[in-house]
């Protein structure tokens, strides 16, 4: 019989809400730039909570270790790539105005893209780090 029933069930309930909160922070980030970072931290926190309660083995099954690695690099790629897209569209590097007909929409999309890059990187780094730590004793 599992004697950690309280923690187990409560985190079960909590996890989806944490994740949706992360995405809320993410997509409302353009009103307060930098949301991508918080979102990444929160999203990673949801995973870390899960791994803490259910054990690393199960967390690894849900999210294989290569995923955070890829995320880390992919985020940077999104960030730098957006700059190139704006440049390809005739603007300066990271000049979002050119991303849509209406400059303000362009800025909106640009910030969304950048922030998404940040989210992916931060998530990858945090989870990767947790894996690195939690996985040590076993190996």
């Amino acid at each position: 019989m599992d004697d950690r029933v309280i923690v187990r069930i409560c985190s079960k309930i909590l996890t989806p809400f944490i994740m949706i909160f992360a995405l809320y922070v993410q997509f409302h980030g353009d009103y307060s730039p930098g949301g991508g970072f918080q979102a990444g931290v929160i999203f990673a926190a949801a995973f870390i909570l899960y791994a803490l309660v259910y054990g690393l083995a199960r967390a690894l099954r849900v999210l294989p270790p290569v995923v955070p690695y890829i995320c880390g690099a992919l985020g940077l790629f999104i960030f730098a790539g957006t700059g190139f897209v704006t440049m390809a569209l005739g603007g300066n590097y990271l000049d979002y105005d050119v991303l849509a007909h209406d400059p303000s929409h362009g800025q909106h999309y640009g910030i969304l893209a950048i922030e998404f890059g940040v989210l992916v990187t931060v998530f990858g780094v945090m989870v990767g780090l947790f894996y690195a730590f939690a996985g040590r004793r076993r190996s």
Partner: protein
Amino acid sequence: MEALGLFNYWAVVILMMLGFYTLIARGNLVKKLIGLNIFQTSVFIMYISMGKVTGGTAPILIDGEGSVVYSNPLPHVLILTAIVVGVATLAVGLSLVVRIKEAYGTIEEDVIQDADK
């Protein structure tokens, strides 16, 4: 308000000292990192509590002349960027500590130094 500003100032200074002390005085590598992080956090608090950084304009949507423009989001970005950098530093530091622990079997600085003599 004045008093609070002053309080923040002292909180920053105390945190900074605390972090710096931990950083220097502790032999445990993880504690050093924690000290570093406290030290950096104190700086973020300083940024937040500095009137001109946050007091200017709130990063919300404001209406310009007919078209929607975004206000200066700078202070917010600065703090967040600094925090990201701090977290990344912590991440690299901790992963180093993990590997040090594997290589030396300890995370106490003096033991490590003895081991390499």
